[in-house]
């Protein structure tokens, strides 16, 4: 009986009570899930941005190619006058490509591309005035 009483007098486990392990696991699970979801969302955003850049790059060279066709049409146009010519082509909803070409006899090749750059389109400002009461 003395042995059993001594066994019952064991000190209790400090910090490891019933429910502690479940709480620790719930905390670990929450951390893992949050990290996984954050990682996946960030990677998906990166992918969307990368695909957007790739599409814009492709659109830029497509616009440049279209400008080359316009330039060829202008060169074949016999009625064009010597001087400068400005060609423009849309890249997307926000940008357009502007190419300035100089024609002249003094240029050995017949033309010279003086500048070619992409320019943001001017934003349309909607004039939405406040309604004014005009008497009746």
């Amino acid at each position, binding site marked *: *009986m003395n042995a*059993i009483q001594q066994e*019952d007098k064991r000190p209790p486990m400090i910090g490891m009570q*019933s*429910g502690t*392990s*479940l709480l*620790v*696991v*719930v905390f*670990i*699970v929450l951390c*893992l*899930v949050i*990290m*996984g*979801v954050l*990682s*996946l969302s*960030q*990677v*998906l955003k*990166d*992918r969307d941005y*990368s*695909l957007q*850049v*790739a599409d814009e*790059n*492709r659109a830029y*060279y*497509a616009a*440049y*190619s279209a400008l*080359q*066709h316009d*330039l*060829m049409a202008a*060169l074949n146009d016999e009625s064009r006058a010597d001087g400068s010519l400005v060609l423009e082509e849309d890249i997307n909803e926000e940008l357009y490509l502007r190419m300035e070409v100089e024609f002249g006899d003094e240029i050995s090749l017949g033309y010279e591309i003086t500048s070619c750059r992409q320019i943001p389109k001017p934003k349309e400002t909607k004039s939405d005035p406040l309604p004014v009461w005009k008497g009746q």
Partner: protein
Amino acid sequence: MAASAISVKIMGNKKAASHSGSGFFLLEIMLSVFMLILCVAVCISLFAASRLISKKTLCTDQAVQLLSGLAEQYIATDTKSFLQEISVYYDGEFSPASDDASADYLLEISVTGTDIERCEFTLVDISEDEMIYEMYVEKLI
């Protein structure tokens, strides 16, 4: 005699209570481990998907940089291209590969047209047989 019987009864109850606590603790541990395994399995799949998408994104970025540089070089040259079909092999780091066996990516360049030359670039992942990026540029000769 009666006192010893009572003490034995009390000791029996204590023993039963201790056994019940151990059983609950064991059940709790089993539940915790099961939840942990389930969550780790889900999270590992999430991390693996993230890594795969990240690798593809990096590959697309590298391809866009590479092909943009080549397109600018092509535009900058005024002369007519003599080569019609070019194939270049790249390794995993997008450095030119010494041989086909160690290559991971294949870049194909084809030039067509007379007055207006059209140069098409296509980058293909050889191992997965998947097209990564393609673009074209035209220039007046």
